[in-house]
């Protein structure tokens, strides 16, 4: 059994982070939430309706950007990919694609191919693709785990920028990560998941003011307090399971 | 039995069922159409039952296999030797480049009349043609195999002062063996086809001659039976080869895992 009892809500416009060690079923949980995997028990409700297959209102950013972007399409076409079913003209699709690319800070790379870009830029393309169909919920599966630390900080801020920008549309973001600091930096609320079988161990409000910055926010006392609370929750879990640190 | 094994067994049975259904359709169609060229499966089966074990047929098959063995051995051994040389030396590769590219793309049948004029329509021609057809796939495979030998192994050879022919035989050959075997297996099927082709032309005995004689006699069921035997023979040789390959390459499979065929 990968996941035990995982029950939680995501409110409109919330940025929720899910934290847990490797092997606690985070990716499985995400696939279930997206509708890619049917749960053996339980339901996923989107605005009160149960989902059966990936709903149109949902978008997913994968960890391995190099495998999730289509190598035979240029960046713009990759970003435009989800727009096929919306009945827009080619010109409208291209315009939306370009707009999504500017939101993630990539202007003028539309004609390049994914493999010509750096890792950080490729992940931005993946985020732009997730944005382009105006989803209501965006899921991210450890999206910054495959890039170096400097790029990671950059991408975190890109995500915050996106979140701020679409905030008026009440877009929710569910961000799965193993990095506690990242979770606290980004989120409104952090869910702590236990190792396999995954269970919700704690739900911790972050309550830090926005906009957040790498330098100021991360060194604030409030940040450290939340961070420590999460680490405590994790440690308590490990103690309960008789693990030695 | 595990769930997966049951599922696999179900799949195989399903396939077998479809096959039997196809045979039944063949049977029904042939009986109703009563076409000269489409004998019912049952008739072909009966004829095969008679013909396959018969002394004449078996000796023909034996003759074909002997030629195949001779041509295959000659072609494979020369190909591996030349391939080792080409693979280890960029200069040799460049020199022989255009020639091999051309000869590789040349349809083997073109060699047959040339060979007939040179050595007549007998066994020398046949074995030569088979050797020619077997040569190039094995050559390409050997060159590819040697070129793919990891840098670390080459460096090790250099550090241990192993050079030249000794290096080719003791280091490159074993390292390239998996790839070479893939080429050897493909060439086997090609060789079998060439035996038949070279026998359809010219005099003598063999499976190809048998097929041709049945054609002149308009013995259609016998032709079907012979062609089916050929298919079976090809399949059996391929399987046999895989057994040999597995034995020879146990070290490789240990490291890399069984290949998907």
């Amino acid at each position, binding site marked *: 059994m990968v996941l035990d009892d995982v029950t939680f809500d995501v409110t409109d416009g919330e940025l929720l982070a899910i934290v847990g060690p490797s092997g606690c079923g985070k990716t499985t949980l995400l696939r279930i939430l*997206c509708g*890619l995997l049917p749960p053996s028990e339980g339901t996923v409700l989107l605005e009160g309706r149960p989902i059966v297959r*990936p709903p*149109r209102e949902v*978008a997913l950013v994968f960890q391995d950007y*190099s*495998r*999730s972007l*289509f*190598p*035979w399409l240029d960046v713009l076409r990759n970003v435009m*990919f*989800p727009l*096929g079913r919306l009945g827009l003209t080619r010109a409208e699709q291209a315009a939306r694609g370009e707009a999504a690319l500017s939101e993630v800070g990539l202007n003028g790379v539309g004609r390049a*191919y994914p*493999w*010509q870009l750096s890792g950080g830029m490729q992940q931005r393309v993946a985020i732009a693709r997730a944005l382009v*169909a105006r989803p209501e919920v965006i899921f991210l599966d450890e999206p910054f785990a495959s890039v170096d630390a400097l790029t990671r900080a950059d991408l975190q801020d890109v995500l915050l920028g996106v979140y701020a920008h679409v905030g008026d549309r009440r877009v929710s973001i569910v961000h799965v990560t193993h990095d506690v600091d990242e979770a606290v930096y980004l989120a409104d609320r952090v869910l702590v998941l236990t190792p396999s079988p995954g269970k919700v161990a704690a739900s911790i409000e972050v309550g830090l003011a926005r906009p957040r910055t790498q330098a100021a926010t991360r060194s604030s006392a409030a940040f450290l307090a939340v961070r420590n609370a999460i680490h405590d929750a994790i440690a308590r879990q490990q103690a309960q399971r008789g693990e030695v640190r | 039995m595990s769930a997966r094994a049951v599922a696999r067994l179900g*799949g*195989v049975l*399903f*396939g*077998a069922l*479809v*096959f039997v259904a196809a045979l039944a359709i063949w049977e029904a169609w042939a009986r109703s159409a009563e076409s000269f*060229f489409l004998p019912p499966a049952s008739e072909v089966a009966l004829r095969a039952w008679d013909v396959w074990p018969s002394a004449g047929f078996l000796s023909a098959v034996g003759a074909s296999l002997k030629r195949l063995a001779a041509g295959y051995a000659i072609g494979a051994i020369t190909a591996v030797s030349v391939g080792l040389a080409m693979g280890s030396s960029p*200069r040799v590769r460049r*020199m*022989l480049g*255009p*020639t091999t*590219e*051309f000869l590789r*793309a040349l*349809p083997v*049948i*073109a*060699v047959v*009349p*040339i060979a007939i*004029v*040179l050595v007549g329509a007998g066994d020398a021609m046949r074995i030569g043609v088979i050797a020619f057809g077997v040569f190039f796939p094995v050559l390409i495979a050997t060159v590819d195999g040697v070129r793919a030998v990891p840098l670390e192994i080459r460096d090790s050879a250099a550090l241990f002062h192993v050079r030249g022919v000794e290096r080719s035989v003791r280091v490159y050959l074993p390292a390239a063996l998996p790839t070479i075997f893939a080429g050897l297996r493909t060439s086997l*099927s090609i060789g079998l*086809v060439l035996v*038949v*082709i070279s026998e*359809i032309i010219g005099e003598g005995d063999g499976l190809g001659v048998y*097929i041709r004689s*049945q*054609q002149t006699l308009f013995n*259609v069921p016998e*032709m*079907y039976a012979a*062609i089916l035997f*050929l*298919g*079976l023979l*090809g*399949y059996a040789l*391929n399987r046999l080869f895989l057994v040999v390959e597995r034995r020879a390459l146990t070290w490789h499979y240990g490291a890399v895992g069984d290949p998907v065929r």
Partner: protein
Amino acid sequence: MNVAGWLFVLAVLVLAEIAVRLFDLADSVAAPSATLGAFVDGMSSGTLSDELGRTLGSYVQGFALAVAVGVPLGIAIGSSRTIEDATAVVIEFLRPIPAVALIPLAILVFGLGTPMLRFVIAYAAVWPILVHTMYGVRGVDRMLYDVAATSGVRGASRIVRVTVPAALPSIATGIRVSAAIALVVCVTAEFFVGTAGVGAYMQAQQAAYRLPQLYAAAALAGLLGVAIDATLRSGERHALFWVGEEQARQR
């Protein structure tokens, strides 16, 4: 420009020319000079070039048939376990049967003309296409299907926009291998039937003992093979521009 390679070719041809003249081998081997003469003659006068045209006609028809059948069937088999199971035994049974062994039978059934050639060529060429397409489709990165699912791309649209492009490198290899096999079978069948095409021309020249013409036809067949392969490889590089880069990056 591979100077060493072409020099080698030149050297071999010169040596052959000398050997033929010196040892008076013209009865068994055609001298390169005579072959060249016969080639130029045959192509300009139309005897050889006409046969080339006929060969190309049957070849293209048979090969196109193989692609038209092999690719869709390969996609179907690669995408569906059920279809794969259903067809597995039949395919394993038919595949080892060499197309050239079917030539005598095909002659009885279809006669000596283009339909027979079309059938035999298509039968021979369909297997590599089928197998490579199947493996290509099966090997598509499942993550790309997840991307399609979350982008609302399903069914036929998914096959066209994701499955085929992702499987294209494998399909292209299958087509290239098939193209070579198709040529061999085409010329072989022509050789046996003896009515039209480069193969038939070769057979006739051999029977009439006109060695330079025979060698010229053989050279033409070889050049044809080289040309077809080069064309397909170049087309592959263009259509599959992303492959080398992606693999290089993954390395």
